[in-house]
Protein backbone atom coordinates (compact mmCIF):
# COMPACT_ATOMS: atom_id res chain seq x y z
CA UNK A 1 0.00 0.00 0.00
CA UNK A 2 2.84 2.37 0.91
CA UNK A 3 4.63 1.91 -2.44
CA UNK A 4 1.38 2.33 -4.38
CA UNK A 5 0.57 5.51 -2.45
CA UNK A 6 4.09 6.95 -2.90
CA UNK A 7 4.07 6.12 -6.60
CA UNK A 8 0.71 7.82 -7.01
CA UNK A 9 1.90 10.97 -5.24
CA UNK A 10 5.10 11.05 -7.34
CA UNK A 11 3.08 10.63 -10.54
CA UNK A 12 0.89 13.51 -9.43
CA UNK A 13 3.94 15.75 -9.01
CA UNK A 14 5.12 14.98 -12.53
CA UNK A 15 1.64 15.39 -14.05
CA UNK A 16 1.15 18.74 -12.33
CA UNK A 17 4.57 19.93 -13.47
CA UNK A 18 3.94 19.01 -17.09
CA UNK A 19 0.51 20.70 -17.02
CA UNK A 20 2.03 23.98 -15.87
CA UNK A 21 3.86 25.10 -19.02
CA UNK A 22 5.29 28.23 -17.39
CA UNK A 23 6.90 26.12 -14.70
CA UNK A 24 8.60 23.89 -17.30
CA UNK A 25 9.94 26.90 -19.21
CA UNK A 26 10.97 28.77 -16.05
CA UNK A 27 12.81 25.83 -14.52
CA UNK A 28 14.79 25.05 -17.69
CA UNK A 29 15.25 28.34 -19.46
CA UNK A 30 16.27 30.59 -16.55
CA UNK A 31 19.45 28.72 -15.55
CA UNK A 32 20.43 28.08 -19.17
CA UNK A 33 19.99 31.77 -20.00
CA UNK A 34 21.92 32.67 -16.88
CA UNK A 35 24.74 30.35 -17.94
CA UNK A 36 24.81 31.65 -21.49
CA UNK A 37 24.77 35.37 -20.59
CA UNK A 38 27.14 35.24 -17.62
CA UNK A 39 29.40 32.69 -19.28
CA UNK A 40 29.63 34.65 -22.52
CA UNK A 41 29.89 37.97 -20.69
CA UNK A 42 32.77 36.97 -18.46
CA UNK A 43 34.24 34.94 -21.30
CA UNK A 44 38.02 34.67 -20.91
CA UNK A 45 38.39 37.62 -18.53
CA UNK A 46 39.13 35.59 -15.41
CA UNK A 47 42.54 34.29 -14.50
CA UNK A 48 42.63 32.83 -11.03
CA UNK A 49 44.19 29.89 -9.22
CA UNK A 50 42.03 26.87 -9.98
CA UNK A 51 41.03 28.08 -13.42
CA UNK A 52 42.79 26.45 -16.29
CA UNK A 53 44.78 29.11 -18.08
CA UNK A 54 42.37 31.57 -19.71
CA UNK A 55 39.51 29.12 -19.20
CA UNK A 56 36.34 30.16 -20.97
CA UNK A 57 33.85 30.99 -18.22
CA UNK A 58 31.12 29.20 -20.20
CA UNK A 59 33.09 26.03 -19.55
CA UNK A 60 33.86 26.74 -15.89
CA UNK A 61 30.30 27.76 -15.14
CA UNK A 62 28.65 24.72 -16.77
CA UNK A 63 28.79 22.26 -13.80
CA UNK A 64 27.50 25.09 -11.59
CA UNK A 65 24.51 25.52 -13.86
CA UNK A 66 23.74 21.81 -13.75
CA UNK A 67 23.85 22.12 -9.95
CA UNK A 68 21.60 25.21 -10.06
CA UNK A 69 19.02 23.36 -12.14
CA UNK A 70 18.97 20.48 -9.66
CA UNK A 71 18.72 22.97 -6.79
CA UNK A 72 15.94 25.04 -8.34
CA UNK A 73 13.83 22.13 -9.55
CA UNK A 74 14.20 20.04 -6.40
CA UNK A 75 13.61 22.90 -3.99
CA UNK A 76 10.75 24.50 -5.91
CA UNK A 77 8.97 21.17 -6.35
CA UNK A 78 8.54 21.19 -2.56
CA UNK A 79 6.66 24.50 -2.62
CA UNK A 80 3.74 22.26 -3.50
CA UNK A 81 3.78 21.04 0.12
CA UNK A 82 2.72 24.53 1.21
CA UNK A 83 0.23 24.88 -1.66
CA UNK A 84 -1.25 21.47 -0.90
CA UNK A 85 -1.75 22.44 2.72
CA UNK A 86 -3.32 25.79 1.83
CA UNK A 87 -5.62 24.34 -0.83
CA UNK A 88 -6.73 21.47 1.41
CA UNK A 89 -5.25 18.61 -0.62
CA UNK A 90 -2.69 17.68 2.04
CA UNK A 91 -5.25 16.94 4.75
CA UNK A 92 -6.87 14.38 2.43
CA UNK A 93 -3.51 12.60 2.22
CA UNK A 94 -2.83 12.84 5.96
CA UNK A 95 -5.98 10.89 6.84
CA UNK A 96 -4.99 8.00 4.53
CA UNK A 97 -3.53 4.92 6.30
CA UNK A 98 0.10 5.52 5.21
CA UNK A 99 -0.43 9.15 4.27
CA UNK A 100 2.43 10.74 6.19
CA UNK A 101 5.24 8.52 4.97
CA UNK A 102 3.68 8.33 1.48
CA UNK A 103 3.58 12.12 1.09
CA UNK A 104 7.27 12.33 2.02
CA UNK A 105 8.42 9.61 -0.36
CA UNK A 106 6.02 10.71 -3.09
CA UNK A 107 7.40 14.25 -2.95
CA UNK A 108 10.98 12.96 -2.82
CA UNK A 109 10.51 10.68 -5.81
CA UNK A 110 8.55 13.29 -7.78
CA UNK A 111 11.00 16.13 -7.06
CA UNK A 112 13.97 13.88 -7.85
CA UNK A 113 12.51 12.70 -11.16
CA UNK A 114 11.86 16.27 -12.29
CA UNK A 115 15.31 17.51 -11.22
CA UNK A 116 17.15 14.57 -12.78
CA UNK A 117 15.25 14.87 -16.04
CA UNK A 118 16.02 18.58 -16.39
CA UNK A 119 19.63 18.25 -15.32
CA UNK A 120 20.21 15.47 -17.86
CA UNK A 121 18.65 17.57 -20.64
CA UNK A 122 21.14 20.33 -19.79
CA UNK A 123 24.03 17.85 -19.54
CA UNK A 124 23.31 17.04 -23.19
CA UNK A 125 24.49 20.61 -23.95
CA UNK A 126 27.91 19.74 -22.46
CA UNK A 127 29.73 19.54 -25.83
CA UNK A 128 28.98 23.26 -26.31
CA UNK A 129 31.10 23.89 -23.19
CA UNK A 130 33.95 21.73 -24.37
CA UNK A 131 32.92 18.77 -22.23
CA UNK A 132 32.67 15.34 -23.86
CA UNK A 133 31.31 12.79 -21.38
CA UNK A 134 31.24 9.17 -22.54
CA UNK A 135 28.70 6.52 -21.45
CA UNK A 136 30.71 5.62 -18.32
CA UNK A 137 30.89 9.27 -17.20
CA UNK A 138 27.22 9.79 -18.02
CA UNK A 139 26.36 6.86 -15.75
CA UNK A 140 28.29 8.43 -12.84
CA UNK A 141 26.80 11.83 -13.63
CA UNK A 142 23.32 10.31 -13.45
CA UNK A 143 24.18 8.78 -10.07
CA UNK A 144 25.52 11.99 -8.48
CA UNK A 145 22.71 14.08 -9.98
CA UNK A 146 20.15 11.65 -8.53
CA UNK A 147 21.67 11.69 -5.04
CA UNK A 148 21.94 15.49 -5.11
CA UNK A 149 18.31 15.73 -6.27
CA UNK A 150 17.06 13.49 -3.44
CA UNK A 151 19.06 15.48 -0.89
CA UNK A 152 17.95 18.88 -2.12
CA UNK A 153 14.31 17.80 -2.41
CA UNK A 154 14.54 16.54 1.18
CA UNK A 155 16.04 19.86 2.26
CA UNK A 156 13.21 21.76 0.55
CA UNK A 157 10.63 19.43 2.12
CA UNK A 158 12.16 19.91 5.56
CA UNK A 159 11.79 23.68 5.25
CA UNK A 160 8.40 23.69 3.51
CA UNK A 161 6.63 21.23 5.85
CA UNK A 162 6.13 23.56 8.84
CA UNK A 163 5.52 26.67 6.67
CA UNK A 164 2.18 28.07 5.59
CA UNK A 165 3.35 30.83 3.26
CA UNK A 166 4.93 30.43 -0.16
CA UNK A 167 6.28 33.99 0.11
CA UNK A 168 8.08 33.03 3.31
CA UNK A 169 9.47 29.96 1.60
CA UNK A 170 10.80 32.03 -1.33
CA UNK A 171 12.39 34.50 1.08
CA UNK A 172 14.15 31.66 2.87
CA UNK A 173 15.35 30.24 -0.45
CA UNK A 174 16.98 33.56 -1.35
CA UNK A 175 18.53 33.87 2.09
CA UNK A 176 19.78 30.32 2.44
CA UNK A 177 19.97 28.41 -0.83
CA UNK A 178 21.42 31.02 -3.14
CA UNK A 179 24.44 31.59 -0.82
CA UNK A 180 24.72 27.81 -0.47
CA UNK A 181 25.04 27.60 -4.25
CA UNK A 182 27.44 30.59 -4.42
CA UNK A 183 29.68 28.85 -1.91
CA UNK A 184 29.71 25.52 -3.75
CA UNK A 185 32.36 26.51 -6.28
CA UNK A 186 29.72 27.03 -8.95
CA UNK A 187 30.70 30.67 -9.58
CA UNK A 188 34.33 30.76 -8.49
CA UNK A 189 36.95 28.24 -7.40
CA UNK A 190 38.01 28.18 -3.74
CA UNK A 191 41.70 28.56 -4.56
CA UNK A 192 41.70 32.33 -5.05
CA UNK A 193 39.09 33.17 -2.38
CA UNK A 194 39.46 34.69 1.08
CA UNK A 195 40.30 32.22 3.81
CA UNK A 196 36.92 32.44 5.54
CA UNK A 197 35.14 31.80 2.24
CA UNK A 198 37.33 28.75 1.72
CA UNK A 199 36.36 27.47 5.19
CA UNK A 200 32.67 27.94 4.43
CA UNK A 201 33.08 26.17 1.10
CA UNK A 202 34.82 23.27 2.80
CA UNK A 203 31.84 22.82 5.17
CA UNK A 204 29.24 23.19 2.42
CA UNK A 205 28.07 19.72 1.30
CA UNK A 206 27.03 21.22 -2.03
CA UNK A 207 30.74 21.95 -2.76
CA UNK A 208 31.34 18.21 -2.92
CA UNK A 209 28.42 17.81 -5.31
CA UNK A 210 29.84 20.53 -7.51
CA UNK A 211 33.30 19.02 -7.29
CA UNK A 212 31.96 15.63 -8.40
CA UNK A 213 30.01 17.18 -11.30
CA UNK A 214 32.97 19.29 -12.46
CA UNK A 215 35.42 16.41 -12.13
CA UNK A 216 33.20 14.00 -14.05
CA UNK A 217 32.42 16.48 -16.83
CA UNK A 218 36.15 17.19 -17.27
CA UNK A 219 36.89 13.46 -17.65
CA UNK A 220 37.67 12.87 -21.31
CA UNK A 221 36.89 9.49 -22.91
CA UNK A 222 39.48 6.93 -21.88
CA UNK A 223 40.75 9.00 -18.91
CA UNK A 224 40.49 7.56 -15.37
CA UNK A 225 37.74 8.87 -13.09
CA UNK A 226 38.63 11.79 -10.77
CA UNK A 227 40.49 10.66 -7.64
CA UNK A 228 38.19 12.68 -5.34
CA UNK A 229 35.02 11.12 -6.74
CA UNK A 230 34.42 8.49 -4.03
CA UNK A 231 35.13 11.07 -1.30
CA UNK A 232 32.67 13.53 -2.89
CA UNK A 233 30.08 10.78 -3.33
CA UNK A 234 30.40 9.68 0.29
CA UNK A 235 29.79 13.18 1.66
CA UNK A 236 26.84 13.85 -0.65
CA UNK A 237 25.27 10.45 0.13
CA UNK A 238 25.73 10.87 3.90
CA UNK A 239 24.20 14.37 3.84
CA UNK A 240 21.28 13.12 1.75
CA UNK A 241 20.65 10.26 4.16
CA UNK A 242 20.63 12.62 7.13
CA UNK A 243 18.21 14.97 5.41
CA UNK A 244 15.81 12.15 4.49
CA UNK A 245 15.90 10.89 8.07
CA UNK A 246 15.19 14.39 9.38
CA UNK A 247 12.19 14.62 7.01
CA UNK A 248 10.86 11.24 8.17
CA UNK A 249 11.11 12.36 11.78
CA UNK A 250 9.36 15.62 10.99
CA UNK A 251 6.35 14.14 9.16
CA UNK A 252 5.85 11.49 11.83
CA UNK A 253 5.00 14.21 14.34
CA UNK A 254 1.31 15.10 14.47
CA UNK A 255 0.65 18.62 15.67
Amino acid at each position, binding site marked *: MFMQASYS*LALREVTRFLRQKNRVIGAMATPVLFWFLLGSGVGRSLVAPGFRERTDYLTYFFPGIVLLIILFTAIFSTVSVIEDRREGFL*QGVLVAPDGRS*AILFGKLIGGTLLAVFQAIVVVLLAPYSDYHPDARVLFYLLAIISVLAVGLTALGFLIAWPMDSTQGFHALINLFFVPLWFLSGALFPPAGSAEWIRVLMRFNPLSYGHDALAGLLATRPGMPLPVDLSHDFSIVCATTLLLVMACALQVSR*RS
Partner: protein
Amino acid sequence: MGDSFYAVAAEGVGYSYGRKRVLDNIDLRLEEGGMFCVLGPNGSGKTTLFKLISTIFALQDGEISVGGRSLRQFPTPVRKKIGVLFQNPAVDMKLTVRENLRHHGNLYGLDPHDLETRINKNLEALGVENRGGELVESLSGGLRRRVEIAKVLLTRPSILLMDEPTTGLDPAIRSELWSIISGIRNTRKLSVLFTTHLLEEAEPADEILLLDQGHPVAAGKVSELRSSLGKEYVRLGTYSPKKLAGRIRKEGEIEVTVEPASVKVVPTRGQAAPLAIRLWREYSSEVTSVTLCRPTLEDLFLQKTGRLWSSTPGEI
Protein backbone atom coordinates in the same frame (compact mmCIF):
# COMPACT_ATOMS: atom_id res chain seq x y z
CA MET B 1 -13.98 2.52 27.17
CA GLY B 2 -16.26 -0.35 26.17
CA ASP B 3 -17.44 1.48 23.05
CA SER B 4 -17.36 -1.41 20.58
CA PHE B 5 -20.97 -0.78 19.53
CA TYR B 6 -20.40 2.90 18.87
CA ALA B 7 -19.13 4.10 15.51
CA VAL B 8 -17.42 7.01 17.25
CA ALA B 9 -17.08 7.58 20.99
CA ALA B 10 -15.22 10.37 22.73
CA GLU B 11 -14.71 10.79 26.43
CA GLY B 12 -13.16 13.70 28.28
CA VAL B 13 -11.50 15.09 25.15
CA GLY B 14 -9.54 18.30 25.56
CA TYR B 15 -7.10 20.18 23.37
CA SER B 16 -4.86 23.23 23.70
CA TYR B 17 -2.91 25.29 21.19
CA GLY B 18 0.04 26.20 23.37
CA ARG B 19 -1.50 27.75 26.47
CA LYS B 20 -4.83 28.43 24.83
CA ARG B 21 -7.44 25.85 25.77
CA VAL B 22 -9.79 25.38 22.80
CA LEU B 23 -11.61 22.18 23.75
CA ASP B 24 -12.53 20.94 27.19
CA ASN B 25 -14.19 17.82 28.50
CA ILE B 26 -15.98 16.73 25.34
CA ASP B 27 -18.04 13.52 25.34
CA LEU B 28 -19.95 12.16 22.37
CA ARG B 29 -21.43 8.88 21.13
CA LEU B 30 -22.33 8.13 17.53
CA GLU B 31 -24.29 4.90 17.21
CA GLU B 32 -23.62 2.64 14.25
CA GLY B 33 -25.70 3.75 11.29
CA GLY B 34 -26.61 6.97 13.07
CA MET B 35 -26.12 10.61 12.20
CA PHE B 36 -24.45 12.92 14.71
CA CYS B 37 -23.99 16.65 14.46
CA VAL B 38 -21.42 18.77 16.27
CA LEU B 39 -23.08 22.16 16.23
CA GLY B 40 -21.45 25.39 17.25
CA PRO B 41 -20.98 28.97 16.21
CA ASN B 42 -17.70 30.14 14.73
CA GLY B 43 -14.93 29.74 17.28
CA SER B 44 -16.61 26.95 19.25
CA GLY B 45 -13.85 24.39 18.62
CA LYS B 46 -15.74 22.02 16.32
CA THR B 47 -13.03 21.97 13.63
CA THR B 48 -10.42 21.12 16.28
CA LEU B 49 -12.63 18.28 17.49
CA PHE B 50 -13.05 17.15 13.88
CA LYS B 51 -9.29 17.14 13.32
CA LEU B 52 -8.85 14.99 16.42
CA ILE B 53 -11.46 12.44 15.32
CA SER B 54 -10.12 12.34 11.76
CA THR B 55 -6.59 11.64 13.13
CA ILE B 56 -4.98 14.82 11.78
CA PHE B 57 -4.24 16.05 15.30
CA ALA B 58 -2.79 13.82 17.98
CA LEU B 59 -4.95 13.37 21.07
CA GLN B 60 -3.85 15.35 24.10
CA ASP B 61 -6.49 14.67 26.76
CA GLY B 62 -9.23 12.06 26.89
CA GLU B 63 -9.96 9.12 24.63
CA ILE B 64 -11.57 8.68 21.23
CA SER B 65 -12.49 5.34 19.71
CA VAL B 66 -13.65 4.79 16.15
CA GLY B 67 -15.36 1.51 15.26
CA GLY B 68 -14.40 0.26 18.71
CA ARG B 69 -10.66 0.89 18.23
CA SER B 70 -8.71 3.41 20.23
CA LEU B 71 -7.52 6.26 18.08
CA ARG B 72 -4.49 6.73 20.29
CA GLN B 73 -3.34 3.13 19.86
CA PHE B 74 -4.56 2.23 16.38
CA PRO B 75 -4.63 5.33 14.14
CA THR B 76 -3.85 3.37 10.96
CA PRO B 77 -6.71 0.79 11.21
CA VAL B 78 -9.02 3.68 12.15
CA ARG B 79 -8.04 5.56 8.99
CA LYS B 80 -9.10 2.57 6.88
CA LYS B 81 -12.61 2.76 8.34
CA ILE B 82 -13.28 6.46 7.89
CA GLY B 83 -14.08 8.62 4.90
CA VAL B 84 -13.31 12.28 5.48
CA LEU B 85 -14.93 15.23 3.74
CA PHE B 86 -13.19 18.48 4.64
CA GLN B 87 -14.39 22.06 4.67
CA ASN B 88 -12.05 22.87 1.77
CA PRO B 89 -12.15 20.33 -1.06
CA ALA B 90 -9.21 17.91 -0.77
CA VAL B 91 -8.99 17.42 -4.52
CA ASP B 92 -6.21 18.44 -6.88
CA MET B 93 -7.48 21.14 -9.20
CA LYS B 94 -4.79 20.39 -11.80
CA LEU B 95 -5.86 16.75 -12.15
CA THR B 96 -8.91 15.42 -13.93
CA VAL B 97 -11.86 14.01 -12.01
CA ARG B 98 -10.84 10.44 -12.85
CA GLU B 99 -7.18 11.09 -11.96
CA ASN B 100 -8.23 12.44 -8.58
CA LEU B 101 -10.28 9.35 -7.83
CA ARG B 102 -7.53 7.02 -9.07
CA HIS B 103 -5.02 8.82 -6.89
CA HIS B 104 -7.27 8.45 -3.84
CA GLY B 105 -7.73 4.73 -4.48
CA ASN B 106 -3.95 4.30 -4.76
CA LEU B 107 -3.46 6.11 -1.45
CA TYR B 108 -5.60 3.42 0.16
CA GLY B 109 -3.91 0.59 -1.75
CA LEU B 110 -6.98 -0.50 -3.75
CA ASP B 111 -6.44 -3.14 -6.43
CA PRO B 112 -6.09 -1.28 -9.79
CA HIS B 113 -8.77 -3.32 -11.62
CA ASP B 114 -11.22 -3.10 -8.74
CA LEU B 115 -10.40 0.60 -8.47
CA GLU B 116 -11.47 1.34 -12.06
CA THR B 117 -14.77 -0.50 -11.48
CA ARG B 118 -15.39 1.48 -8.29
CA ILE B 119 -14.51 4.77 -10.00
CA ASN B 120 -17.04 4.11 -12.78
CA LYS B 121 -19.72 3.13 -10.27
CA ASN B 122 -19.20 6.13 -8.02
CA LEU B 123 -19.03 8.65 -10.87
CA GLU B 124 -22.31 7.28 -12.16
CA ALA B 125 -23.92 7.27 -8.70
CA LEU B 126 -22.97 10.90 -8.18
CA GLY B 127 -24.08 11.91 -11.69
CA VAL B 128 -20.64 13.01 -12.89
CA GLU B 129 -19.85 10.09 -15.21
CA ASN B 130 -19.53 12.45 -18.19
CA ARG B 131 -17.05 14.71 -16.38
CA GLY B 132 -14.37 12.09 -15.73
CA GLY B 133 -11.86 13.58 -18.20
CA GLU B 134 -12.28 17.21 -17.12
CA LEU B 135 -9.88 19.09 -14.87
CA VAL B 136 -11.44 19.65 -11.44
CA GLU B 137 -10.61 23.37 -11.65
CA SER B 138 -13.05 23.68 -14.55
CA LEU B 139 -16.00 22.36 -12.49
CA SER B 140 -18.50 24.36 -10.44
CA GLY B 141 -18.44 24.26 -6.61
CA GLY B 142 -21.36 21.85 -6.49
CA LEU B 143 -19.80 19.43 -8.99
CA ARG B 144 -16.49 19.54 -7.09
CA ARG B 145 -18.34 18.51 -3.95
CA ARG B 146 -19.92 15.60 -5.84
CA VAL B 147 -16.49 14.55 -7.10
CA GLU B 148 -15.18 14.68 -3.58
CA ILE B 149 -18.01 12.55 -2.25
CA ALA B 150 -17.40 10.04 -5.06
CA LYS B 151 -13.74 10.05 -4.06
CA VAL B 152 -14.33 9.61 -0.33
CA LEU B 153 -16.75 6.72 -0.87
CA LEU B 154 -14.30 4.81 -3.11
CA THR B 155 -12.80 3.07 -0.09
CA ARG B 156 -16.27 2.09 1.17
CA PRO B 157 -15.86 3.63 4.61
CA SER B 158 -18.22 2.60 7.39
CA ILE B 159 -18.00 6.05 8.99
CA LEU B 160 -18.27 9.33 7.12
CA LEU B 161 -16.82 12.41 8.80
CA MET B 162 -17.73 15.81 7.35
CA ASP B 163 -16.41 19.17 8.48
CA GLU B 164 -18.80 21.99 7.55
CA PRO B 165 -19.55 20.21 4.26
CA THR B 166 -21.71 22.97 2.81
CA THR B 167 -19.37 25.90 3.43
CA GLY B 168 -19.19 28.16 0.40
CA LEU B 169 -22.08 26.46 -1.40
CA ASP B 170 -25.27 28.23 -2.38
CA PRO B 171 -28.56 27.08 -0.78
CA ALA B 172 -29.66 24.98 -3.77
CA ILE B 173 -26.40 23.05 -3.82
CA ARG B 174 -26.49 22.66 -0.04
CA SER B 175 -29.86 21.03 -0.29
CA GLU B 176 -28.60 18.81 -3.14
CA LEU B 177 -25.62 17.71 -1.05
CA TRP B 178 -27.82 16.67 1.86
CA SER B 179 -30.07 14.73 -0.53
CA ILE B 180 -27.02 12.88 -1.81
CA ILE B 181 -25.87 12.05 1.73
CA SER B 182 -29.35 10.91 2.65
CA GLY B 183 -29.49 8.73 -0.48
CA ILE B 184 -26.17 7.11 0.41
CA ARG B 185 -27.35 6.39 3.95
CA ASN B 186 -30.42 4.69 2.54
CA THR B 187 -28.39 2.34 0.35
CA ARG B 188 -25.62 1.39 2.79
CA LYS B 189 -25.14 1.31 6.55
CA LEU B 190 -23.09 4.42 6.96
CA SER B 191 -22.54 6.25 10.22
CA VAL B 192 -22.22 10.00 9.73
CA LEU B 193 -20.64 12.59 11.98
CA PHE B 194 -20.58 16.17 10.79
CA THR B 195 -19.90 19.65 12.08
CA THR B 196 -21.82 22.76 11.14
CA HIS B 197 -22.51 26.29 12.27
CA LEU B 198 -25.84 26.32 10.42
CA LEU B 199 -28.68 25.59 12.81
CA GLU B 200 -31.02 24.23 10.15
CA GLU B 201 -28.44 21.65 9.05
CA ALA B 202 -28.38 20.12 12.51
CA GLU B 203 -32.13 19.37 12.51
CA PRO B 204 -32.03 16.02 10.60
CA ALA B 205 -29.32 14.60 12.87
CA ASP B 206 -30.25 11.84 15.32
CA GLU B 207 -28.26 13.55 18.03
CA ILE B 208 -26.36 16.77 18.44
CA LEU B 209 -23.58 18.13 20.58
CA LEU B 210 -23.81 21.89 21.02
CA LEU B 211 -20.44 23.54 21.60
CA ASP B 212 -19.60 27.04 22.74
CA GLN B 213 -16.05 28.35 23.17
CA GLY B 214 -14.69 24.82 23.42
CA HIS B 215 -17.20 23.64 26.03
CA PRO B 216 -20.22 21.36 25.60
CA VAL B 217 -23.39 23.28 26.42
CA ALA B 218 -26.03 20.70 25.45
CA ALA B 219 -26.21 17.20 23.98
CA GLY B 220 -28.96 14.78 23.00
CA LYS B 221 -31.73 14.21 20.51
CA VAL B 222 -32.90 17.37 18.75
CA SER B 223 -36.59 16.76 19.56
CA GLU B 224 -35.87 16.20 23.25
CA LEU B 225 -33.65 19.24 23.49
CA ARG B 226 -36.33 21.32 21.83
CA SER B 227 -39.14 20.10 24.05
CA SER B 228 -37.00 20.80 27.11
CA LEU B 229 -37.17 24.46 26.16
CA GLY B 230 -40.90 24.71 26.75
CA LYS B 231 -43.74 25.92 24.63
CA GLU B 232 -44.42 27.87 21.44
CA TYR B 233 -43.88 31.62 21.40
CA VAL B 234 -44.47 34.68 19.26
CA ARG B 235 -41.80 36.75 17.48
CA LEU B 236 -42.79 40.28 16.52
CA GLY B 237 -40.72 42.01 13.86
CA THR B 238 -40.24 45.72 14.59
CA TYR B 239 -37.99 48.71 13.90
CA SER B 240 -37.92 49.68 17.61
CA PRO B 241 -37.72 46.49 19.66
CA LYS B 242 -36.87 48.13 23.01
CA LYS B 243 -39.82 50.51 22.88
CA LEU B 244 -42.24 47.77 21.82
CA ALA B 245 -40.94 45.37 24.47
CA GLY B 246 -41.45 48.01 27.17
CA ARG B 247 -45.08 48.44 26.20
CA ILE B 248 -45.83 44.72 25.90
CA ARG B 249 -44.22 43.92 29.28
CA LYS B 250 -46.90 45.93 31.05
CA GLU B 251 -49.52 43.37 29.96
CA GLY B 252 -48.26 40.71 32.42
CA GLU B 253 -48.37 36.88 32.20
CA ILE B 254 -45.79 36.95 29.42
CA GLU B 255 -41.96 36.83 29.15
CA VAL B 256 -40.49 39.41 26.79
CA THR B 257 -36.99 39.32 25.28
CA VAL B 258 -35.52 42.07 23.13
CA GLU B 259 -33.75 40.83 19.97
CA PRO B 260 -31.83 42.85 17.32
CA ALA B 261 -34.84 43.50 15.06
CA SER B 262 -37.64 41.75 16.90
CA VAL B 263 -39.28 41.03 20.23
CA LYS B 264 -39.79 37.50 21.52
CA VAL B 265 -42.95 37.01 23.57
CA VAL B 266 -43.51 33.76 25.52
CA PRO B 267 -46.94 33.26 27.16
CA THR B 268 -46.64 32.03 30.75
CA ARG B 269 -50.31 30.99 30.62
CA GLY B 270 -52.40 29.93 27.64
CA GLN B 271 -51.48 29.31 24.00
CA ALA B 272 -49.20 31.26 21.70
CA ALA B 273 -51.57 31.38 18.71
CA PRO B 274 -54.33 33.56 20.27
CA LEU B 275 -51.61 35.74 21.81
CA ALA B 276 -50.12 36.28 18.34
CA ILE B 277 -53.46 37.45 16.93
CA ARG B 278 -54.08 39.77 19.88
CA LEU B 279 -50.59 41.32 19.71
CA TRP B 280 -50.92 41.85 15.96
CA ARG B 281 -54.21 43.69 16.45
CA GLU B 282 -53.05 45.83 19.36
CA TYR B 283 -49.60 46.83 18.07
CA SER B 284 -50.12 46.72 14.30
CA SER B 285 -48.71 50.23 13.83
CA GLU B 286 -45.32 49.17 15.31
CA VAL B 287 -45.14 45.56 14.19
CA THR B 288 -43.80 44.60 10.75
CA SER B 289 -44.35 40.85 11.06
CA VAL B 290 -45.75 38.24 13.44
CA THR B 291 -44.32 34.73 13.57
CA LEU B 292 -45.61 31.82 15.61
CA CYS B 293 -42.50 29.85 16.60
CA ARG B 294 -41.56 26.50 18.10
CA PRO B 295 -38.41 26.59 20.28
CA THR B 296 -35.32 26.21 18.07
CA LEU B 297 -31.71 25.26 18.58
CA GLU B 298 -30.97 28.97 18.51
CA ASP B 299 -33.22 29.36 21.56
CA LEU B 300 -31.39 26.49 23.21
CA PHE B 301 -28.08 28.28 22.62
CA LEU B 302 -29.50 31.51 24.02
CA GLN B 303 -30.84 29.72 27.07
CA LYS B 304 -27.57 27.90 27.78
CA THR B 305 -25.11 30.70 27.06
CA GLY B 306 -27.12 33.88 27.50
CA ARG B 307 -25.89 35.03 24.08
CA LEU B 308 -27.44 35.21 20.66
CA TRP B 309 -26.12 32.75 18.06
CA SER B 310 -25.15 35.58 15.72
CA SER B 311 -23.05 37.43 18.33
CA THR B 312 -20.34 34.77 18.58
CA PRO B 313 -16.59 35.23 17.99
CA GLY B 314 -14.36 33.98 15.13
CA GLU B 315 -13.47 30.37 14.24
CA ILE B 316 -10.79 28.42 16.10
